[in-house]
Structure formats: structure tokens, C-alpha cells
């Protein structure tokens, strides 16, 4: 098999497999402790992203000099902040700080004497901060763990494809790995019939946001595609969480609620196919 395909499959498969084993144990052990379950799932998710990054980029850069190199550090920091939000940290304040910090990672070097960079910082901070409120609070209250994870998995997985099309195989691989890991968590959350907590969506937001922003700014991912993928999970706001004890009823509800997410993701992938140049000759 093609060497690059094998590498990509390993990059996506190994972190997902590790996530499956670790999260299955965690879901089983802390089934009746939602806070501890959320912390573990969030930390494993961040760990999976860090491993996926390591496999894709072949190492970490320290100190990070460019925005993409911040991804593993950001994943770790967001996961820790997310865990602390359950105890002492003010959720909104810490989310605002994380949003501003992420925006500065991208625009810090251009900020002096450049009002456009300042506008970018403000805009990215607002988008991230509003998204944290929407995803952490609103959607989590309206979705089952499986619905939320699968919605995010579809966006991140499709993100892998469109980022690859947009000219970054490596960032695409990281996004694809995120999608696969979230898919694994969705399967576990479905069978354990539990929620996944608020750490996981927080990690998703900042990492997927960074991947999309990097791909738009430094590669050729169309902004329209990025925006569509970003808003795709918000479709889960429509409807109510139904706690179905039966697997068949849960599956039916899951499929119905995913339709709107799938529609947005499909439009996003279609837009990428239309707007990005033909595939590379690497």
C-alpha cells in the first residue's frame, strides 16, 4: 500500500484505538460520576489530539514559533482549564481568556502598528467565546453525549478532507484524527447512554478552530467551507434531548438529529471541492 496512505492511516488509527480502550474503561468505571467522567473524557481527547499531532508532524516544536505548532500545547492547556472549570475557575472568564489567547497565537507577531491584526484578534476572540457558550452550555443541555460527539466528529472528520484539499495534508490528518477520536467517543457514549461533559467540546472548539484558521490563513481552505464546518454542529440546537433507554429509539433519535449536521457538512465539503484547486502532485 502507498507509504503516505499507511502513514495517514496510522496517524488516524493509533490515537483512535488508544482512545477507544482508555475511554471505554473510563466510561465503565465512572458511569455514575458525571464530573469525573467528563474530566477523563476531556483529558483523553486532548491526549489523543496531542498524539495525532506528534504522528502527523513528527515531533513538537519548543518553543513554538508559528500558530500550527501551538496546537498540542493549546490542547493540553484547554483540557486543564476545562477540568478546572468544574471546580474553581469561572467558566466565562476562563473561556474569554482562552479565546483571546488563541487569537493572539495567530496575530501576536503582526499586532504592533497593524490595526487590521487587532480587528482579527477581536473578531476571533468573539467567535471563539460565543462558540464556547453555545457549545458548552446550550448544546450540551440539548443533546445526548452520542449526539454531541457524533456532530463534532462529522465536522472534524470532514475538516480532515477539506483541509487536505485546501493544501495541508498534515493539518488535515490532525483534523481527521480528531474526527475519528470523536467518533469513537460517540459510539461509547451511545452504548453507555451517558453525556460526555463540557471539557470535550471546549477542547474541540479551540483545536478545530485553530486548524480551520491555520488552513484558511496559511493554506488555501476557502473561508466559506471553514464557516460552514464551524457552524455545522450548531444545528444540534434545534430539538430537545430525549433520554431514550432503548437502543433502537436512541439510534432513531440520533439519526434524525444528525440530518441537519450532515446537510451542513455535505455543503461544506461540496464548497471545498468547488472552490479549491485540483489535488496536489506531491
Amino acid at each position, binding site marked *: 500500500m502507498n*507509504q*503516505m496512505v499507511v*502513514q495517514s492511516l496510522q496517524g488516524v488509527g493509533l490515537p483512535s484505538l488508544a482512545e477507544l480502550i482508555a475511554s471505554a474503561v473510563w466510561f465503565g468505571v465512572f458511569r455514575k460520576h458525571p464530573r469525573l467522567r467528563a474530566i477523563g473524557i476531556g483529558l483523553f481527547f486532548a491526549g489523543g489530539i496531542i498524539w495525532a499531532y506528534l504522528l*502527523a*508532524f*513528527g*515531533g513538537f*516544536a519548543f518553543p513554538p*514559533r*508559528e*500558530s*500550527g*505548532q501551538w496546537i498540542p500545547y493549546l490542547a493540553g492547556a484547554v483540557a486543564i482549564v476545562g477540568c478546572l472549570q468544574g471546580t474553581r475557575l469561572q467558566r466565562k472568564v476562563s473561556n474569554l481568556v482562552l479565546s483571546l489567547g488563541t487569537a493572539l497565537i495567530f496575530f501576536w*507577531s503582526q499586532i504592533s502598528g497593524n490595526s487590521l491584526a487587532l480587528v482579527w484578534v477581536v473578531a476571533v476572540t468573539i467567535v471563539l467565546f460565543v462558540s464556547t457558550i453555545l457549545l458548552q452550555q446550550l448544546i450540551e443541555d440539548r443533546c445526548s453525549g452520542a449526539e454531541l460527539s457524533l456532530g463534532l466528529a462529522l465536522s472534524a472528520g470532514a475538516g480532515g478532507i477539506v483541509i487536505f484539499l485546501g*493544501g*495541508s*495534508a*498534515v*493539518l488535515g490528518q490532525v483534523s481527521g484524527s480528531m474526527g475519528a477520536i470523536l467518533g469513537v467517543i460517540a459510539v461509547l457514549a451511545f452504548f453507555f447512554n451517558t453525556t460526555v461533559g463540557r471539557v470535550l467540546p471546549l477542547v474541540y472548539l479551540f483545536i478545530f478552530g485553530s486548524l480551520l484558521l*491555520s*488552513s484558511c*490563513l*496559511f*493554506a*488555501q481552505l476557502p473561508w466559506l467551507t471553514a464557516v460552514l464546518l464551524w457552524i455545522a454542529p450548531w444545528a444540534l440546537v434545534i430539538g430537545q434531548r430525549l433520554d431514550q433507554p432503548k437502543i433502537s429509539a436512541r439510534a432513531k433519535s440520533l439519526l434524525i438529529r444528525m440530518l441537519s449536521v450532515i446537510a451542513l457538512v455535505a455543503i461544506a465539503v461540496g464548497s471545498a471541492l468547488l472552490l479549491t*484547486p*485540483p*489535488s*496536489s*502532485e*506531491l
Partner: protein
Amino acid sequence: MKKHYLPLLLSVLAFAGTTVAHADSFKIDPFHSAIIFKVGHFGVGNVYGRFDMFSGTFTLDQNDPSKDAVNVEIKTDSVDTNAPKRDTDIKGPDFLNAAQFSTATFKSTSVKKTDDKTYEVTGDFTLRGVTKPLTLNVQAIGSGPGPKGEFRSGWEATTTLKRSDFEVKALLPAVSDEISLRIAVEGVKQ
């Protein structure tokens, strides 16, 4: 009294003139220069590319080659591998990240004459924000008047670097770690 100082003054001026004459500055002529690279593809072949936009200067001291100096700046978004989509990928975040790091530079730190016409030029090479020492094996091609009477000096340098040293690790080992560089320059005396 003034007569005593005149020979001294003349000798100082003469010495200064001699020094200037032996350290000549040249500006790289981009129309008669090239920066070409070679990278392995899946271990079965090589892909060649070039950078179309670069600039630089070099100084030649005829009496003391160790005082020679070279400075080159390459525009990373001018990479051309005869495949526009691939060029876009190379300019992107996986490889050169030209949007964030618009130039690669080489600044010599020492020059050693190894033979009649060959030199080892060691310097700091900066790619994607990472600076590492790099040694160029340089050969003098020739020198003399150009078509407009300007004095020209031609050189060719080769070296090999590992892209992973500069944290460009995407698609290893399918796209080889080792990159061969060939830099051919003609400089016009300033």
C-alpha cells in the same frame, strides 16, 4: 612643518586605497543566477525545483579569502517545481509556511580556501524561523567584464541539508529528508 606631514598623509591614503581595491563588493544578478533544489520522491526518483526570487551580496578580499562574506535572501513564495498545485502545497503550512516566513536567508560566518578555485563557506541558514549552521562547497567559475563593461564574478555552490533540522517534517520519509541545493550566482561589482 606641513612638508613633514605630507608624505605620511599620502601613504595613509595610498594604504586605504589599496585596502578598498582588495575587498570588492558584488551584488547578485538574479537574471544570471539560480537557486535549484532536489528532493527525493518515495525513494524512486527526484523532484527538482527552484526559487525564482532572491537577492544578495558578496564581498571578495583578494588578499585574505577568510574576510570574504556572502549574504543571500530567498523569497519562499517564489518556489517553482513546474506543478502549480504542488507549489501551493510547498508554500503552505506543511512545508515552507511562506505566509508566515516569507524569506529564507544565508549569512556567512567563515570562508576557507580549500584549493585554487574552491572554498568552504560556512554560515547561518535560516528557514522557517529556525537558524542552523550550513556549509556550502563553493567553486569559482570565472570573472571578467560583462556586456556593458561591468565587472562580473561567477560562483557555484552546492550543499545538502536535512529539512527536519528546520522542523519541516511533513510527509517524511515519502518526501525525502535530505535536500540538495545548488546555487549558481553571477555578481556585478559595485
